[in-house]
């Protein structure tokens, strides 16, 4: 039984969505040119992850997995295993939730909305969100664990994206070989950063 | 009354060759020249031609973008040569002095009763306006604005700088009239920065001016530093500054009706035989001032001080805003293993030289770079010598990257080249700090 804190730390550093699994790379690379936008998207991802992971935990445990629907009391449903259509369901839950967030941000922070522009819809297909859900499904998490995991994954993604953005802003003054500029050097930075994130390997308190 | 501002950051480069406090008369030189390129970005439109007879105060040229501002002749005589450089850019307007010093008469008047428009007109016509500098950008003051404040520094903290209190002794009334004139031009205050616990006898009785005292090493005497600590420049602000000797000359314009751009300057440096004070007019040829004064060997003569001055020949001309001449040895000798040996003592803020054991020793410095140019690596040295809440490295990097937004946010409006001269001095990476800033300023002035 892992403590919530350990799950949280592991999700941030060891199982970091970016550095361990390369999930959410598209938006990661696209929005990491400026710290300001990175913070915006990072916060959005963190928020979406920490809500949709537990949300999908409920969906999985009460609807999808074998015997999940025994709580309905309907015997016909008690043995149904719907986990094979999980993908579509999870994606739908995520998409619906992101739509909601988008509307909220648009209403309350037009500046942020303008800055994030086309990237908000991208959160729906940001693999880190679906990845988080799929990892959660594959592990024997309780609802609390799932929340800690979702939040941790989000924080990990957030840290990764703002740190990279700060590095790339600093890199403006560097003299990187032309063919490496942009994508190439960013990948190598990601590689070097991931060394640092291994600090907490095997960590438990 | 006066508030005291203590500055800890900065560095005094202690040099041999300080001027003794006596004013030695030197013969008025034969030739004079104004050099438009002394002001960044100035494009002159000539009003005279070779052969034109001029008096002291006769307009020579005006800046292309400010047709009502005149640069006038510092002396009476005849325009003898217009020296041009690449693309026919005007480098010098040379005047042969007639030795009589005839003045244009602009008429005496009391600035307070003249009113803003009257003061402005007199200054513009006589050429005194050109000594008003406007920040941001350190440009010639715009004629159609009212500055937030006007700042004057009452002391020069640069290495071997002249004692301005000494230089202005006996000119109190001119100074007061000059201040009165400036006070008419602004709705804000005229600020005067004085050195804490120094002899300020020439300034103590001044009125119509807000005095702040500054305590600390160079660049405490830079007006830019003083502005930052009294009433900093924000986006959209414009403030004016004027050298205090020019304020006295401004006073003279109103008291006597004449343009008389003469300053008491110090002739200093290790390669000067007899460092003293003398009187010199703006644009004067240096030949008489340094006659028999330079020691033998390769010597660099500087109009200005070692941190902010122009390299000049003995036959060159005195700078438009300078108040000192400095001569130091050239340092074009390679130094064997110079980077590893303790080396002869030299001023340095780093403590890797034995010189830090003798903090009060005065040095004979040369112009060697002491190393090669490198990327910005070492941190915290600029910060040690810039007593402002500004991040110099980040600001310079923003200039290099031509990032206007960052330059503005990091405070480029508050600094001019002179303020960062110590940063260039201390730079381990031997970066041309002033040039970088200068390019940044030019860019933002053009784009912004």
């Amino acid at each position, binding site marked *: 039984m892992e403590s919530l804190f350990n799950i949280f730390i592991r999700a941030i550093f060891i199982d970091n969505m970016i550095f361990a699994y390369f999930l959410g790379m598209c938006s990661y690379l696209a929005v990491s040119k400026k710290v300001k936008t990175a913070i915006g998207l990072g916060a959005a991802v963190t928020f979406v992850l920490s809500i949709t992971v537990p949300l999908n935990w409920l969906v999985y445990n009460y609807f999808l997995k074998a015997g999940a629907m025994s709580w309905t009391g309907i015997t016909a449903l008690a043995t149904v295993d719907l986990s094979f259509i999980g993908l579509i369901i999870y994606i739908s839950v995520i998409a619906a939730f992101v739509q909601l967030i988008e509307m909220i941000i648009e209403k309350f922070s037009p500046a942020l909305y303008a800055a994030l522009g086309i990237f908000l819809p991208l959160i729906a297909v940001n693999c880190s969100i679906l990845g988080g859900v799929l990892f959660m499904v594959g592990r024997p998490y309780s609802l609390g664990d799932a929340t800690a995991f979702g939040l941790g994954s989000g924080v990990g993604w957030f840290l990764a994206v*703002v740190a990279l953005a700060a590095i790339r802003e600093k890199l403006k003054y560097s003299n990187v070989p032309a063919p490496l500029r942009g994508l190439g050097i960013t990948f190598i930075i990601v590689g070097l950063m991931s*060394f640092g994130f291994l600090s907490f390997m095997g960590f438990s308190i | 009354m006066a508030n005291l501002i203590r500055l800890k950051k900065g560095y005094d480069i202690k040099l041999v060759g300080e001027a003794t406090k006596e004013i030695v008369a030197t013969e008025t030189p034969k030739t004079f020249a104004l050099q438009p390129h002394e002001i960044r970005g100035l494009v002159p439109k000539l009003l005279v031609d070779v052969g034109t007879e001029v008096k002291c105060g006769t307009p020579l040229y005006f800046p292309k973008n400010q047709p009502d501002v005149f640069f006038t002749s510092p002396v009476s005589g005849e325009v003898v040569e217009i020296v041009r450089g690449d693309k026919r850019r005007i480098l010098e307007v040379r005047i042969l002095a007639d030795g009589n010093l005839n003045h244009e008469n602009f008429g005496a008047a009391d600035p307070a009763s003249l009113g803003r428009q009257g003061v402005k007109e007199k200054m513009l016509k006589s050429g005194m306006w050109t000594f008003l500098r406007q920040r941001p950008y350190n440009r010639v003051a715009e004629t159609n604005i009212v500055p937030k404040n006007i700042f004057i520094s009452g002391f020069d903290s640069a290495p071997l700088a002249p004692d301005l209190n000494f230089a202005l002794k006996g000119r109190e009334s001119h100074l007061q009239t000059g201040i009165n004139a400036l006070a008419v031009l602004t709705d804000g205050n005229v600020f005067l920065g004085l050195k804490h616990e120094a002899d300020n006898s020439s300034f103590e009785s001044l009125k119509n001016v807000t005095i702040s005292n500054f305590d600390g090493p160079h660049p405490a005497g830079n007006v830019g530093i003083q502005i930052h600590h009294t009433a900093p420049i924000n*986006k959209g602000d414009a403030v004016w500054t004027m050298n205090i000797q020019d304020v006295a000359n401004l006073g003279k314009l109103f008291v006597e009706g004449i343009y008389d751009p003469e300053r008491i300057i110090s002739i200093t440096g290790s390669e000067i035989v007899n460092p003293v004070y003398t009187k010199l007019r703006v644009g004067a040829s240096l030949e008489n001032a340094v006659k028999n004064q330079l020691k033998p060997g390769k010597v660099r003569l500087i109009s200005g001080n*070692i941190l902010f001055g122009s390299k000049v020949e003995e036959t060159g001309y005195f700078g438009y805003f300078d108040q000192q001449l400095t001569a130091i040895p050239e340092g074009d000798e390679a130094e064997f293993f110079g980077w590893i040996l303790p*080396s002869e003592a030299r001023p340095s803020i*780093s403590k890797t030289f034995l010189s830090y054991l003798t903090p009060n020793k005065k040095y004979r410095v040369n112009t060697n770079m002491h190393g090669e140019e490198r990327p910005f*690596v070492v941190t915290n040295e600029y910060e040690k010598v810039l007593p402002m809440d500004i*991040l110099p490295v980040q600001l310079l990097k923003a200039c290099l990257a031509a990032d206007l937004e960052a330059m503005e946010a990091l405070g480029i409006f508050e600094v001019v080249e002179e303020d960062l001269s110590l940063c260039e001095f201390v*730079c381990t990476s031997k970066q041309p700090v002033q040039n970088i800033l200068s390019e940044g300023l030019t860019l933002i002035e053009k784009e912004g």
Partner: protein
Amino acid sequence: MKFLKDTMDKLRPTFSKGGKFQFLHSTFEAFDTFLFVPGHTTHGKVHVRDGIDMKRTMIVVVIAMIPALLFGMWNVGYQHFLSMDQTASHLDYFLHGLIQVLPIIIVSYGVGLGIEFAFCQIKGHAVNEGFLVTGMLIPLCLPPTTPLWMVALGTAFAVIIGKEIFGGSGMNLLNPALTARVFLFFAYPAYMSGEFLSDGTAVWFSGNRADIVDGFSGATTLSVVAGGGEAEYSVMNMFLGLEKGSIGETSVLAILIGAVILVVSGVGSWKIMASTFAGGLLMGGIFNWISGTPFLDMPAYQHLLIGGFAFGAVFMATDPVSAAQTERGKIIYGLLIGILTVLIRVGNPAYPEGMMMAILLMNVFAPLIDYFVVESNKKRRLKRATV
């Protein structure tokens, strides 16, 4: 000296544009400026420059590392004889260590400088002196048992991937020496944690290198504590450095001598050093307060004496390029390194080299720390305008 200068000047045209050895221009210049600080003079409005330059700065760091290096050599020999239950003269200890350590230094400098020169040659840049420090740091932070080809590989990785592709010295993200160390740590963990006996075949050096190092490998103080706290270590030994570990990291005393050199000369940031130590003490204190396991109960100050803490704080964390570059940022950066080090160490007893990982992680976050410091400066200015 005059003769030497004349010779160099005579050779110059051969290596300059149009000369026969034009392609070696950067190399020639590097040697010339190594021998002589050039006679360039100032050309802007600033006519005098500070005596300090990059070479001098770098050499001060190298000098600061020498006590740790010399002690490290002696200690390698001492530990060797100790493990064989023998005693020998101090000179023997030292010589034994010298034979062990010198090849590592030679490989580190040889490979690093070789790559550096090659890159500069290709790009036509001047050779930078940054590697003077890196080349010494790499051997100091490696276990003396490291096979030489690993030293070469780690150095090559650090110089190429860690530095050159970012545009060379001053542009790198991570501390290059640390990059080498961490690369090797993850590439060949068994060799790096000192649990591996070099088997001779993997070593270039005379085949019997294993004999030389025999017995040196084994538990470091950290692993002793980690392994259950049968405390067979003495605080004094930890301070003096009479223990196993990477070549230069064991003796806190020798490192402190270096620290004094760095701080007094102003070359190393005292802010980073002090805040790193403070962070370590703080976190150690918190853990003492929680208490429970041997590691939690280890007195806070002892955290500063083991596992390369002092070495990291003094020589690694202070690298001005990879550290935070703003003054406030440096304090935050140092504090976090100290805190993280102890946290990582205590959180994972099997992985006690928390120091280098913590520094590496903070290298990654240093630009972000700076970003916030710079933003706060901008905000102050903006606020002033609106008041």
